[in-house]
């Protein structure tokens, strides 16, 4: 894979930023992201109508809002991916400090949106979920610290990044948000893995984490009930899971028809965590497959582009951000087909939600900055 460096120099020396960006950015991923967002708007038209009705808004109120957030999100993608990786890093590290402090402030200033967990900060009529915004910044922070350790053996990069991760994980568990905590821990594990962790250490770590998970299961009734519900052989039709499975069966390949679906009226989180169930019911399973293909394209392209990367920081950062993206999608989709226990997780670029959409924009902007084609330092491998 040495062709990149042999490309004519002119390709990296366009007069203006935008054409240069256009030539080097991963357009496959970019188009897939647009595709995901448009599918999300389409599904939102169906899924958010009951919410709009409940809140006394016109039917497409939430679709309009989603569109506004989408514009903001894609501005972030463009803005971040046009910048160089180290400019991104500078922004993200500042962002990390700010969001981390916001997360710490949650127990004091946070609001509980009626789900028994304090995850939101409200001000000036807006509410914001710091843990969503923390994701891209977290990736940069640990990628930077670990890469520092890779470059200079005297810096205990892995240990420092692990401490940061544990701090965040414990803050999330206090909320309590076991799902997000597990997600952050998994991302750290993956970055650690690609940064060259010894297999022995890694197996030991995964073993310890499993024990931790089991202890949580034994001690938390809430957590255990979800797992038990998942493990029990038959689905109770009155739970969210039951509705979701039912709706996929109801929809068949081509769906019951626009506006004909019933699940959106019955699931409180139809427009966020269970949007794929609404999609399956009204538009049929084919649109779900299309969405999955978009996800596979983005994940596949990003990994393939990262294969040639030589810079430790960009490697770690790219792998971390794409893994965040992939994990979120897999958890959300896996729950609705009952491959995973019930866990509220938004589907990136599809689920309704400003925090999620804008934060995903940050994450993807960062990813695209990492996967932009650039000259690599070593040609001899």
């Amino acid at each position, binding site marked *: 894979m040495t062709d990149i460096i042999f490309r004519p120099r002119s390709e*990296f020396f366009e007069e203006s930023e935008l054409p240069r960006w256009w030539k080097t950015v991963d357009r496959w991923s970019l188009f897939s992201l647009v595709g995901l967002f448009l599918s999300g708007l389409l599904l939102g038209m169906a899924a958010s109508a009951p919410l709009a009705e409940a809140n006394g808004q016109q039917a497409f109120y939430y679709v309009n809002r989603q569109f506004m957030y989408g514009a903001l999100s894609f501005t972030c993608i463009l803005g971040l991916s046009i910048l*160089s*990786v*180290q400019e991104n890093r500078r922004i993200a590290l500042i962002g990390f400090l700010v969001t981390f402090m916001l997360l710490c402030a949650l127990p004091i200033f946070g609001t509980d949106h009626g789900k028994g967990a304090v995850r939101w900060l409200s001000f000036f009529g807006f509410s914001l979920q710091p843990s969503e915004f923390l994701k891209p910044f977290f990736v940069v922070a640990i990628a930077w610290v670990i890469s520092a350790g*890779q*470059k200079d053996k005297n810096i205990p990069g892995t240990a420092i990044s692990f401490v940061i991760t544990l701090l965040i994980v414990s803050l999330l568990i206090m909320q309590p948000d076991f799902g997000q905590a597990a997600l952050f821990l998994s991302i750290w594990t993956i970055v650690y*893995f*690609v940064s*060259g962790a010894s297999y022995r250490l890694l197996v030991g770590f995964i073993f310890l984490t499993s024990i931790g998970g089991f202890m949580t299961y034994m001690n938390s009734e809430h957590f255990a009930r979800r797992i*038990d519900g998942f493990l029990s*052989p*038959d*689905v*109770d*039709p*009155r739970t969210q899971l*039951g509705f979701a*499975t*039912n709706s*996929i*069966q*109801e*929809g*068949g*390949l081509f769906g019951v028809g626009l506006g*004909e679906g*019933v699940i959106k009226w*019955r699931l409180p989180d139809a427009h966020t965590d269970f949007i794929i169930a609404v999609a*399956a019911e009204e538009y*049929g*399973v084919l649109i*779900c*497959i299309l969405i*999955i293909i978009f*996800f*596979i394209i983005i*994940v*596949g392209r990003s*990994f*393939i582009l*990262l*294969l040639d990367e*030589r*810079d*430790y920081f960009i*490697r770690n950062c790219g*792998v971390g951000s794409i*893994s965040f993206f*992939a994990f979120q999608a*897999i958890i959300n*989709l*896996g729950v609705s*087909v*009952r*491959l995973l226990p019930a866990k509220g997780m938004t589907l990136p670029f599809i689920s309704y939600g400003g925090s999620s959409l804008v934060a995903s924009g940050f994450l993807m902007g960062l990813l695209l900055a990492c996967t932009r084609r*650039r*000259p690599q*330092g*070593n040609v001899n*491998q």
Partner: protein
Amino acid sequence: MENEFGSIVHPGNVNEPENYKLSNFRFRLIAILTAFVLVFCLIGTQMIIMAMNPDSKIIQTEANLGEISGRKDIEDRRGKLLATNITVNALYAHPHEIIDKNKVVIELANIFPDLELQFFRDKLMSKKPFVWLRKTISPKQQQSVKDIGQPGLYFGPREMRVYPNGKIASHALGGSRFGNERVDGAEVIGTAGVELYFDKFLRKINDGDSKLELSIDVTIQSLIEQILKDGIGLMGAKGGSVVLMESKTGEILSLASFPEFDPNRRPKNLFKDDPANSPIFNRAVQGIYELGSVFKIFTVALALDEKVVELGTKVNTKGPLRIGGRRISDHKYFGPSLTVEEVIVKSSNIGTVRIANKIGSVRLKEFYKQLGLLEKTSLELPESKLIVPQFPKKWKSLETATASYGHGIAVSPIHLAVAYSSLVNGGYKVEPTLLKNQAKVESRSFIISETTSQLVRSLLGQVVVKGTAKESNFGGYNVGGKTGTAEKPDPIRGGYYEDKVISTFASVFPISTADYVLVVTLDEPENNLGSESFRYASKTAVPISAKMISRIAPLLGLKTNE
């Protein structure tokens, strides 16, 4: 270090470290990518499989009675069932599977005449994939539903809580309802009484204890409820309550409140009326009343224990007594003086106040506190956690005077039963309990001496032999007790009603050992059986208590005139 391309080239990267080569990195990256893509494909495949096979029912209708359907039985002290479970069925439907919906709607309306045709039509014509039709159905109804012969109607088995004795001990038991419902079972949740208080314990069906054993004796309980109900009917009272307690352990053999209810069909809270008149209101526990002269024995017991008086000490009963601008008088003139014994036997307010003055307000209040009259009880009912006695904050001369004969202080009948038990059992404090053999007997804290306790018993005996309770027939059993007739406070005009009373008889039997304490309280009774009408406890609560004791004493193994 930056190169001219605006990208970084780290010298360190150029020479890959020995232990981590690019090939190694690539291998790991490809491993993760493969895993991600495989999972995405797995999810996609699963979706297609589910969409292509709408008939592969994930919802099962078979019984799977798992963790949510168990609940322990509740038994009385002799092992008789108070609450148990029976298996019934719930009816639900998958409307899209039904072929002839109109036929099903009509047939169901015939089988369940208490539900409207429209109810079934709305349910079955909806687009929902799943609807509940009825929470519990009888085996006969189940057969009729099967006979409709249409697909899409299903039965979900569940354990239903039943109380085989109906209304008996309803207030102690409380009640239950269905919580989470699934097709394979339903959760039963306690809503009141011991069902709520011991909810966690009752749900843990595998912890070794197979049942909850109460101290209640259901035979005695049913007798007492019957006599209470008859008595209340005879006297036109609004309600009443009974507590029968073992004085040495605090175990409650009977806890009755009237009006009563059937826990199998627990009524909803009725908010439009005064909640204190609702059948679900537990008067023995939740009702706090000024109970009047039954308190006099506390004052006298303390005075005897402190040795400020003896039984024969003369007490000035010249009235009326003016304290803090209020007049305290007796219901009739008892002469210039009475002995301490006569103060109790004849129930003199003035005499009691003069005795209280010899003790002092600080010590009297402390004594009431020791008897548990100023605090919540530790009874194992959720209702008792909320009930705090009412009493004046500062005990000046007037408050002390009225408290000494049971006015200006309101407690529940349970509080009274605990205080009487503690006075007559030898003088140590007991805690009320609804559990069999759970009383803590090893750590006794004595409030009065054994000798004083003996004196109290004989004083209470004298009340029955020659005092306010002498007219009733206790069936040949030796009983002691103290009456109390307290005017009810008028919440609208302030002050007290002249014609509405709470009439109480706190009794102790057999008098020699005082094993049992019985507290009977009637709300607004009026005895019109003779030529005159009476509200005094001696004509209302006492005869009812007498009847109860003469009926339950044989069941407790007591002999007449020992």
